[in-house]
Structure formats: C-alpha cells, structure tokens
C-alpha cells in the first residue's frame, strides 16, 4: 500500500520536473549548507578563534582576525583544578541522572504503553508537564523544598532536580518503544512463573534496548547542558560546566577567551553524544516521541 502511494506521488510530482531533477537537489543542498555554515559553523569558528587569542597581543576592535594565536588558554584550562572538577562533576551527575531516569521510567512506561486504565490521559498529561513548565520555575519550586530538608547545594540534590526534567522524556521514549512489543511475550513469561523484576530485566530491557540507548543518551545530553535547576539547587557549591560558564560570563570582568574554552569543553561531549544518539535512532522517532506523539 505504502509502495503504491509513494509511486503515484512520484509520478504526479516528479514528471514535470523530470528534465533536471538532479540540479534542483544540488541547489537546495548548496543553499542549506550555506545557511548552516553561516549560522552554526562560522559562529563556532569565531568562538574557537577567541579561545586561541594570544594574551600578549589580544584581539581588539578593528581586527577581523587575531594578530597571533596561542594555546595558553587551553593549557591553563586543563591545569585549572576548579574547571576540571566541574567537568568531572558534570559527567558524574549526567551519568547518574541517565541511569536513574531509565530505571524509574521503565515500569511507568510499560504501564502507559501496555495497560489500559481509566486515568491514563490525566497521567500522560501530568508526565508531559515537567517538559513544558520552564526549568526556572521547577528549580525555584524544588529549591524551596530542598533548602528546608538540607538537599540544597549537594550533588544528590542536583541529581534529583535534573531527573525531574529527563524522566518525562525517558518515559515517553520508552513508552513509544514498548508499544511495539507483543504483550504475549510478557504474558507467557508471567504464566511460566517469572517475577515482575525478571520480566523487566530479561524481556523488556533487551527488547526496548534501542529506546534505552536513544532515551538514555538524550537524557545524558539533557542533564549535561541543563542550567536553571542546577544553578538554583546547586550553585555555588555544586558547579557543573554550565554553571561555571555562567560565572565566567556573568562576572564583573568578562574574559572572552576563558568563556570560549569552557564553551568548547561543554560542547565537545554534548555534540559527540548527540551524534551517537542520532546514529542509534534510525529516524526522528525517539526525539519526536519525547516531545509529542507526532
């Protein structure tokens, strides 16, 4: 059926353009790549130049390029204990957030995907809410509670706060993956006497593995680049990289080269893991499922 549909579509749409379909594709490609170069690659290149500015000559107003380049800012960054601590804090927090979100999400995602029940719409909507209510509001709300119970300014507090943001995404991605798993498998295992924990570990986890990979990697990225909740619950004691970047940018003296170096230390793992997640997802399914059933 689908084959037929796409065949008719090609017949109807592509025949008028048949004389030069290839050239049209090239023009589109050139246009889109030019746009992405202008809006993404060039700005990142200028930022990179800022990270390489030689402090002896500086990079002042009329110069379009720095007079001389140096690795001194990069060298200092890797010798900077505080910055390296931030990097490891960020990596640790993101890893824990990823695992915690996955573990908490699986049972709930299974219930949403496979079990029909009355209040499902309300629960689905409630689970969507933390994706829509802005992080600053969630952060101030949870900060208000954490100040009272002593979880503010601690790494566990930051992990719990960030999980509010990644868990809904994980639940939605896993639910979308689990929907395609036959219910018979679970029922058979249950009839044969498997406990819910065993069913989860031996059947659902392996079958929903693509969802775990995509959702997990995106949760990691979401946690790694999170700022508002971390800033309110954790700063200044818990300094993740984004909080560090904020202090570099928001201070009285703004030092562009330092901010540029921190920018790349934040971006390198983020973009790398995002590429891995993109490879793990065959299409935009997981990303779209996380944001809405479109």
């Amino acid at each position, binding site marked *: 059926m689908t084959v037929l*549909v796409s065949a008719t579509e090609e*017949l*109807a*749409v592509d025949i008028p353009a048949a004389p030069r379909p290839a050239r049209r594709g090239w023009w*589109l*490609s050139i246009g*889109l*790549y030019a746009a992405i170069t202008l809006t993404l690659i060039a*700005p990142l290149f*200028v*930022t990179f130049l*800022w990270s390489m500015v030689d402090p002896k000559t500086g990079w002042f*107003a009329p*110069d*379009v390029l720095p007079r001389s380049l140096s690795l001194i800012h990069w060298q200092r960054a890797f010798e900077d204990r505080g910055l390296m601590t931030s990097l490891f804090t960020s990596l640790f927090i993101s890893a824990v957030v990823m695992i915690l979100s996955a573990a908490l999400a699986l049972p*709930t*995602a*299974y*219930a949403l995907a496979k079990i029909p029940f009355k209040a499902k719409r309300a*629960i689905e*909507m409630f*689970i*969507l*809410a933390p994706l*829509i*209510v*802005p*992080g*600053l*509001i*969630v952060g*101030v*709300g*949870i*900060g*208000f*509670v954490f100040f009272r119970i002593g979880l503010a300014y601690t790494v566990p507090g930051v992990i719990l706060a960030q*999980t*509010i943001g990644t*868990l809904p995404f994980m639940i939605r991605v896993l639910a979308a993956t689990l929907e395609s798993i036959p219910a018979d498998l679970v029922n058979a295992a249950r009839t044969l006497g498997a406990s819910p924990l065993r069913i989860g570990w031996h059947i659902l986890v392996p079958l929903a593995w693509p969802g775990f990979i995509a959702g997990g990697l995106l949760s990691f990225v979401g946690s790694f*680049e999170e*700022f508002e909740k971390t800033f*309110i619950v954790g700063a200044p004691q818990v300094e993740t990289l*984004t909080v560090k*970047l904020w202090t570099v940018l928001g201070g009285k003296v703004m030092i562009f080269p330092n*901010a*540029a170096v921190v*920018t790349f230390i*934040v*971006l390198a793992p*983020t973009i790398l893991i*995002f590429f891995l997640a*993109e490879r793990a997802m065959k299409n*935009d399914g997981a*990303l*779209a499922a996380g*944001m*809405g*059933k*479109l």
Partner: protein
Amino acid sequence: MLLMLLAPGAGYLLLFFGLPLALAFLSSLGIGTIGADSAFTFRHYVELFTSSVYRDGIAFSVYISLAPTIVSLAIAIPLAVALQASFPGKRLFAVLYKIPLVVPAIVAAFVVMILFDRGGMLSRMLLPFGLQLPKLVRDDFAIGVIIAMAWKAVPFMALIIAGALATVPGDLKAAARTLGAGRLATFLRVELPLALPGITAAALLVFVSSTGAFAVPSLLGPIYPRPLSIWMYEEAMHENNWGLASAMGIVLSAVACVILVAYYRLTTSVHRSAGGEAR
C-alpha cells in the same frame, strides 16, 4: 499492580514536581511561607498585578516569548519543507541542523555576544564599508535575546513541523496536483492546513520555553524592563521574598498549564487522525 508500575515514574514526579508546585501555590497565598507569618492573603497577587515594575515585566515576558516564536516559525516552516525533498548530503544535514537543540542557552548567548555586540565580529566586518551596527545586545528591543532564542528554537520547530508534513498522505498531494493545483497551491491549501496542528504545537512549546527563559535574557536583555522569570529569581534568591516569587511562579505555571492542555490535545488528535487516515 498498576499502581506499583506507575509509582516509580509518576510517583517521582508527584513528589519532586507536583508537591513543590503545590507548596508554591500555598506560599503565594501566604500559607507556609518562610520568614513571614502564615495567614491567607491575596497580597502577593495584588502586588504583582498593580506594581508598574512587574506589569512592565509581564509585558516584556510576552514580548520576548512572541517575537522568537514568530521569527523561528518564519525560518522553520521553509526549512521543514526543504527537509521533505531529497538532496545530496541530506543525511549529514539532517544531523547538523539539529545541533542547536543540544547547545546550552548560555553558549548561544555567549556566541551572540561575540558576533553581535559592539566591537563584535559583525561590526568589525562592516567597519571597512563604513557601516555601523545598531545596538543589538542589551538593547531596548531585546534583539540579541530574540536572535539567541530563535536560533535555539528553529531546529526544534523544524523537526516537529517536518514530522507533521511527513504524515500528510502522499495521495492527497497527488490528487491536488492532478486536479490542477500548482506546487505552491498544493502546499498552502493541502499540506499546510493538514500540518497545522503540528505547527501550532511547535509554536506553543517555543512560546512557553521562551516565557520561562532565564539565562539568555539576563545575559543579553536590557537592564529594564526585565522579564517576570528574572524577577521571580531575584525575589526568591536575593530578596528572600518567597511569597511574591511563588505568586510569579504560579502565574508562569498557569500559562504553562494552559499551553500543556492545548499541546496535549493537539498532539493526541494529530496522532489519532493520522492513524485513521493510514487505515
């Protein structure tokens, strides 16, 4: 059994998301606030809506939510249409264009400073031509804020709109073309209306995320007016005025809730109608 399954995920969110919002609601009404007597009052809401500072803040919040939404829609719709076609290098582009999705907002703000601020890259490049950029960072129209937020929103919108456009059945387009509609007419009168729920959903999400934005307007926005989100942060963390901060949080959450319901309706109805047509 069902409750046990729902408990880890939904229970977690109830405890760490629902409960704090409920406490904030009580505290906005003067109940259980730190450092103040506990007594029911509408004082904080009255202050929020009568003070000219906060009213300017609300208006500014609406402005910096609407403007990026409109700008990114204008870019994302053509981009989503382009993504429906096949072209050389499409696979790489399909990954590259999504990068701003995962770039932290602070990084986006920093890059806007480097490029658009006075003495930034753009003004340096225009200098030999005798041209001067207007003030774009910390300016009264919050142009820098709009650029940074739209930059982050475009791939997100394009992703959702491209998804919505892809669900428009091919035979409908073919039928329109056979009946004599041109490419543009087919797009405007068949594809666009069918993809409209997806477009609206994307616009709603971008609007609400801009409403609560904090880092970008604090780094790139004007000194005055400031959006409600920044006032909320100031009242909570610096003034220790949790009652007023909670009232602001509740107003912002109420906006988010309205959008949440609209978004949920749009996305689930799209899901159903798409499913219905496939059958």
